[in-house]
C-alpha cells in the first residue's frame, strides 16, 4: 500500500514539475525583443491547465472499468467527431482539424489518442491463444480507420501516432510477434507508393529532413534554426529569457511544436537532460506500475498511456533535433495547445484511477 502511494505521488510531482517547466518556457517563448507580447496565449494556457487538473481529478476518481465497458462507445463517438471535423470543422493553417464548441476550439484528433488506448487495451486484454488472429485484425482495422480519418484532415503527425501506439502495445501483448513483423515488412514495402499520396508540403518536409540545406530559407529554415537554437545552448544554456534564437524571433512555432528549443537554448544540456529525466521517471513509474496490477485491461491501459507519452516526447524532441522529420506533434505537458494538454492530463488521470483500484 505504501509503495503504491509513493509511485502515484512521484508521477504527480513530476507532472507538476513539467507543468512549471512548460509555463516557464511558454512565458519565455512569448517574449519578443524583451516584450511579453503573447500575454493572451499565456493566460489561455493557464486556463487550460486549470481545466486539465479538474479533468484529471474527475477521471482519476472514476472507476477505470467504466472506461473498459465503454471503450467501443468512446471510440465510436470519436469517429463521429472526426467525421464532423471533415464536414463542419473549421480550417486553420491549411488543415481542417478544429471543432468549435461554445467558444472553445478543440481537436477531436487529440481525443483519438485516448480512445485508441482504450480500444487497444480492451482488444489486447481480450486476446486468448485461440482468438489471437481475430483480435489482431479488429485492433488493426479500428486503428487504421481512425488514423486514416485523421491523416485526411490532414494531420499526418497525429495520424501516425496511432499505428505506432498499435505496434508498441501489440508487441507487448499475447499476440504472436510474427503478425507485427509481417505487418511492419508490408508497411515498409508500401512506403515508396505512399510518397504519391503526400501533400506537397509534406514531401518538402521529408526532403529537408534528409538535407535541410536544400531550401535554407523555406522548408529547411525551421529545422536549421531549431538546431542552431539547441546547439547554441551549450552546457548550461543562455539563461531564462535570454535565448537569442527565441527572443529575436528566429524560431517559428516555438511556443507550440518547437518549445523544446526554448528549453534547450535557455537551459542548455543540463536543462535538457533534466527534462528528459523527468519524462523518464514518469514513463518508468507507469511501466513499473503496470507489472504490479492484476487486471489485464489496466495493465494494457498503463502501457498505452506510457507509450503515448513516450511517442510524443521522442518524436517531438527528435524532430527539433533533426533526427526525425518535422511532423506536427506537440511536446506533452510543455507545448502550448489546450486539447493536447487536456488529453495528456486525462491519461495521467486514467493512470491514477487504475492505480487506485
Amino acid at each position: 500500500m505504501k509503495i503504491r502511494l509513493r509511485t502515484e505521488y512521484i508521477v504527480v510531482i513530476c507532472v507538476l514539475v513539467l507543468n512549471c517547466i512548460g509555463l516557464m518556457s511558454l512565458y519565455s517563448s512569448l517574449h519578443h525583443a524583451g516584450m511579453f507580447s503573447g500575454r493572451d496565449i499565456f493566460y489561455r494556457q493557464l486556463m487550460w491547465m486549470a481545466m486539465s487538473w479538474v479533468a484529471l481529478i474527475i477521471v482519476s476518481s472514476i472507476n477505470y472499468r467504466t472506461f473498459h465497458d465503454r471503450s467501443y462507445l468512446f471510440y465510436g463517438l470519436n469517429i463521429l467527431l472526426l467525421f464532423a471535423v471533415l464536414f463542419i470543422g473549421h480550417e486553420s493553417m491549411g488543415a481542417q482539424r478544429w471543432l468549435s464548441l461554445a467558444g472553445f476550439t478543440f481537436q477531436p484528433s487529440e481525443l483519438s489518442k485516448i480512445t485508441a488506448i482504450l480500444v487497444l487495451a480492451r482488444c489486447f486484454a481480450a486476446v486468448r491463444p485461440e482468438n489471437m488472429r481475430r483480435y489482431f485484425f479488429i485492433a488493426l482495422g479500428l486503428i487504421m480507420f481512425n488514423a486514416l480519418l485523421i491523416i485526411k484532415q490532414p494531420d499526418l503527425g497525429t495520424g501516425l501516432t496511432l499505428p505506432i501506439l498499435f505496434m508498441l502495445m501489440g508487441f507487448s501483448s499475447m499476440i504472436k510477434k510474427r503478425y507485427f513483423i509481417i505487418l511492419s515488412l508490408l508497411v515498409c514495402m508500401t512506403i515508396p507508393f505512399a510518397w504519391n499520396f503526400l501533400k506537397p508540403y509534406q514531401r518538402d518536409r521529408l526532403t529537408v529532413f534528409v538535407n535541410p540545406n536544400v531550401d535554407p530559407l523555406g522548408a529547411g529554415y525551421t529545422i536549421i534554426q531549431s538546431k542552431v537554437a539547441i546547439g547554441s545552448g551549450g552546457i548550461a544554456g543562455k539563461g531564462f529569457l535570454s535565448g537569442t534564437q527565441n527572443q529575436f524571433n528566429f524560431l517559428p512555432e516555438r511556443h507550440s511544436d518547437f518549445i523544446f528549443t526554448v528549453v534547450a537554448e535557455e537551459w542548455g544540456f543540463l536543462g535538457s537532460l533534466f527534462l528528459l529525466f523527468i519524462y523518464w521517471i514518469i514513463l518508468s513509474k507507469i511501466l513499473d506500475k503496470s507489472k504490479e496490477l492484476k487486471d489485464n485491461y489496466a495493465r494494457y491501459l498503463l502501457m498505452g498511456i506510457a507509450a503515448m507519452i513516450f511517442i510524443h516526447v521522442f518524436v517531438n524532441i527528435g524532430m527539433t533535433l533533426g533526427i526525425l522529420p518535422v511532423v506536427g506533434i506537440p511536446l506533452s505537458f510543455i507545448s502550448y495547445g489546450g486539447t493536447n494538454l487536456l488529453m495528456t492530463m486525462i491519461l495521467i488521470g486514467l493512470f491514477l484511477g487504475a492505480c487506485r483500484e
Partner: protein
Amino acid sequence: MSRRFCYIIFLFCFFLLGTTLFYYQIVKGDYFSSRARNNYMHVLPIVSLRGDILDRTGEKIAYDRPVFNVAVIPHHIIAKREKLFSDLSELSGCKKTTIERNYRTLMTNHFSPVNVITDIDKSDAIALMEAFPEDLIINPTPKRFYSMPYEFSHVLGYVKEANVFYDKLKKYGYKPLERVGISGIEEYYDSYLKGEDGGDLVEVNAQGSVVGYIGQRSAIKGKNIKLTLDSGIQKAAYDVLGSRRGVIILMDSSTGALLSMVSSPAYNPNYFIKGSNTGSFLLDKNAPMLNRALKSAYPLGSVFKPIIAVEALMSHIISSGTQFNCTGSFKLGRAVFKCMHVHGIQDLRQALAHSCNVYFNNVGMLMGADRITSAAYRFGFGNYTGIDYPNESKGVVPSKEWKRKNIKTAWYGGDTVNFSIGQGYFTVTPIQALIAVNAIFNGGYLVRPYFISEIGGENAEITARKYIGTDSRFLDIVKNGMWDAVNTDTGTARLLKKLGFSIAGKTGTAQTRGKAHGWFVGNIKNNGLSYSICVFLENAGSSSEAVKVCYEFLDELKRKELL
C-alpha cells in the same frame, strides 16, 4: 504480456536523444553559438566619406555625393522574391537579371539588407518605396564623383568597392563595402583618402528589424587632398591635345610641383564608378586607360642632344667652340646615318638650335657608348622619378652589357651613333624627359615631380632634388643652344618665339615603328617664375606637331592668364 519490449524501446530512444543533445550542445556547441550570434548580431556598416581631392585653387575635382540604393532583406521576401523582383524591374527600369545578380553576389546572410538596385535618384527610390513599403529599405550611400572626369582621369584614377576583388584585399584589412582607389592619386594616397568606416552593432530579429543597439562607431571622413595641379591649365592641355595621342606636362622648374599632366586620349572615371560603358575604354585600340606620361616609354630622339652636350662638356671631350661639318650624313664604315639638312660647319650652340644629327654623331663617337650610358643615368633615365603615382615605368637605358644580356649580340659602332641622338634601344617616359631637361634650367638638379600639395589642410609638399654634379658654365652653353632653337629664325622651335615668353627648349623627332613621335621639352620663364614643359605626341610624324601643340597650349594659358 511483457513490459520489456517497451522498456528497451524507451531506453534506446531516450539514449538516442541524449547523445544527439550531447553532440549538438557540447561537441558542436561553439559552432552553433557562433551561428546563433551571426543570426542576431549585425554590423550595419556606415560607409565613410572619402576625402575630397582639390586642385591648387581649391576647386573640388573629386568628391563624394549621396546616391540611393534599394535593399531587401532575404528572409523577409522568401516567398514573394520572384514576383517582387519582376515588379521592381518593371517599375525601376532596372533589368531583372541585374537585380538577381546583385541579390546573389551581395547577400551576406539571410537577415541583412541586400542592395538589389543601386545608384538611383532620390525621387525614384522614394517612388519604389511607396510601391512596396513592406519589402524595401532605402540605403543611401556616398558615391565618388569626378567633376572634370576626362581632364583628370589619369592623374586621379578612380575607386571601386573592395568586394570586387575582395579575395586579394581582405588580407590588407579592407571591408567588402569599403572603396579602394584604383590607380592614380586615388590609389597612391588611398590610406589618407579612405577614412574609417563605422558601423552600428545591432541586434536584429528574424524580420530583420533592429530590436536593440549594442554600440556604434561613427565613420570618419578621409582627409582632403589638395593637389599642385591647376584645373584651368589641365583643361587647356586636354582641349589642345584634342583627339591626338600624347602628353602635356607642365612643372615648376625648381620644386618639381606639377601644374598639369594630361595624357590623351583619356577616359571617364565616373563610368567606372557606376560600372557601365567601361568596355569602350577598355577595348579602344588607342588605349585611353594608359597614362602615357609615366607608364609608357618611348624613344627620346633629339631631346637627348642637350644631355649628350652637357656630358661631353663636363668630360672635356668638346668645348663650346668645337665645330663639326655637317654634310647631310654621317658615315661609319659602310653605314650612312642621315641628317635632316646639310647644316655645314656647326658649333655646339648652332647644332642644338638646328638639331644637327651629324654633330652629335661625331660627339657620340668621341664619347663612346659607356659615357653616353652614364650620361643617361646621370640625368635620371632608367630610374624612377619618384613621383607620387603608382607604377611608373623606368624606361630602358641601353649599355654594352645590357645589349649582351637582352639582345644577345655585341654592341656595334652603329649602336653608339644611334644612341648619341636618342635613338636605338633607348626609351624614356615623358616625365623622365621633362625632369632631365629641367635639370639644365634649374642649375643642375633632378627634382622629384609631385602632385601633392596639402593633406588634411597641412602642407605635404616635399621637394627632393638631386644635384647632377656639373658646372653651371656648361649648363649655360647648352641653355644658349636651346634658347636659339626657339629664338632664332632657323631654330627648330621658332614658332614659340611669337608668344612673348622667355622660352628655351629642344625638339625631337623620334623614329619608331610607324610614324615618328614628336617631342618638345623646354623651359618658360615668366613673371620671375620658371616652368618646364614637356609635349609628347605619339606617332605625330615630326616634332613640328609637338611645337604647334605647345604653342597652342601656351597661347591658351597666356590668353587666360593662367601662367
